[in-house]
């Protein structure tokens, strides 16, 4: 299993490095249209062919991977910070704070995640600029994905509140922010890191779902969600297996996160 984790980390690093170098490696810009060859099969000029609008599929895959791999961790960071704030304060303070925070958590968790996400995303403007659509999509993921993590963080913070070392720290005169920064946060760090790591594949998959349903990143910007929308046309173009490459890459990346994740969970 240890070797599987090494391979998973190597895959993630390789995919991240290749996608970050999309500007140098991609044969064209993601929006450049080769009007003379729409829906082209793979060739030396276009390794993964072109889409309906004649855009190079490999270029769109590289840029789309970069977007998803940069912004999913950013959204995960936002949701983890919210979870740390809400769950951490609730668990550390206890009493009414904890009850109030857990009631809010129950409220968010009582709605299925995708239902909540789709509803809120659809309520925001759909005809926005591509950049704004990217920000809205990943900001929503970050702002709505805190509840499950907050519950875990709250339990962790409550356990720290009742712990012997915190009592000892209080007895030595530590209090307020000093206690939080020097005692509580360092002990919550493994838990927060695990929650951050868990959120990344969840957000990648959620963006893909939103993109397929037309509520994710707007054209012409590519993302895994918008690239997977091409699967809708597979019935017509059956046998064109290169169209499945984005799906294969998504499975590879999310699978690698899952493999590394088991280690993070153990460490937490």
């Amino acid at each position, binding site marked *: 299993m240890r070797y599987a984790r090494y391979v998973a980390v190597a895959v993630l690093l390789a995919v991240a490095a290749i996608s970050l170098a999309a500007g140098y490696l991609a044969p064209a810009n993601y929006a450049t249209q080769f009007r003379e060859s729409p829906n082209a099969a793979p060739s030396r000029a276009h390794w993964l062919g072109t889409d309906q609008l004649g855009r190079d599929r490999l270029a769109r895959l590289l840029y789309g991977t970069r977007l998803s791999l940069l912004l999913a961790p950013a959204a995960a960071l936002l949701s983890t910070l919210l979870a740390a704030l809400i769950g951490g304060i609730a668990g550390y303070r206890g009493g009414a704070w904890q009850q109030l925070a857990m*009631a809010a958590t*129950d*409220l968010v*968790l*009582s*709605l*299925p*995640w*995708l*239902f909540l996400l*789709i*509803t*809120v995303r*659809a*309520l*925001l*403007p759909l005809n926005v600029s591509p950049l704004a659509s990217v920000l809205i999509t990943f900001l929503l993921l970050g702002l709505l994905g805190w509840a499950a993590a907050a519950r875990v963080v709250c339990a962790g913070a409550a356990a720290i509140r009742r712990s012997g070392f915190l009592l000892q720290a209080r007895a030595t005169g530590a209090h307020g922010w000093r206690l939080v920064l020097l005692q509580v946060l360092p002990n919550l760090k493994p838990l927060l890191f695990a929650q951050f790591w868990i959120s990344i*594949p969840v957000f990648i*998959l*959620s963006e*893909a*779902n939103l993109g*397929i*349903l037309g509520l994710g990143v707007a054209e012409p910007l590519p993302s895994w969600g918008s690239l*997977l929308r091409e*699967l*809708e046309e*597979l*019935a017509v173009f059956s046998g064109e297996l290169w169209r499945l490459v984005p*799906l294969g890459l*998504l*499975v590879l990346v*999310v*699978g690698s996160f*899952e*493999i590394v994740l088991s280690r993070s969970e153990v460490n937490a």
Partner: protein
Amino acid sequence: MAAIVLLGALAAATLVRLAPGFDVSEQQLDPRLSHDSVEALRAQRGDNANLGRFYRQYLSRALHGDFGFSLTLNRPVRDLLVERFPATARLVGLGLLAGWLLAAALALSGAWFRQPAYDVATAIVGSTVLCLPSAVLALLLVLWKAPACIAIALVVFPRIFRYARDLLARNYQAPHILTAHAKGLGPARVLFCHVLPVSAAPLIAAAAVSVSMALGAAIPVEALCGIPGIGQLAWQAALGRDLAPLVTVTVIVTLVTLAANSVSDLLNSRLPEAKA
């Protein structure tokens, strides 16, 4: 529970009310409509503009079985729900059943055989399915002309399988299981009399969570497979900023999720192992 349902509906109503372009509908932009018609439509939407008033009226009517009128589908919400609920119930019910059967079969057979190769093979299958977005599963099933409930089953299966497999593996390492083996009990008796009863409480809790998963997956599955259910209604209502059906569906989904959690808590409270 009632407070959470009411708060859920209020949150949904607030979100819709605050959404940009709430008081504008496509009908108002239709050049064939006269000025009076457009004003009438605007006044109709204006009734919903005051959130407090809308919410009070909505609750009062809902208590009498009137959930309002869908402005985009031009029909009473109650009729839409009655018409669409069976499709979603069938889809989610069959999906949950198939997902749980598959997860239980693989987890139990893994616990029974305890062969590393089998564990690795089932883990790879489960993890691969787990990496597929529910919308992709729906698209692939449309492509293969397979029943849509399989998409729900494939959303539920890997999560339940992984949880059940880890739970059974952990419970197999408990001291009383070692004692049972030492006393010469057969593998079937150890599994069914000593491992499964201890695992029942968390599995029942997982069953409640799986209802929420299945309902969430029902939206892309119904939207992409063209199934006229509650998920598709929520999707259409959200796109059309149609307040009445959206709030009602939100309340129903919250109610179903909370009911599943309550049933799970009730069952767990009746288990002697859970009390111990």
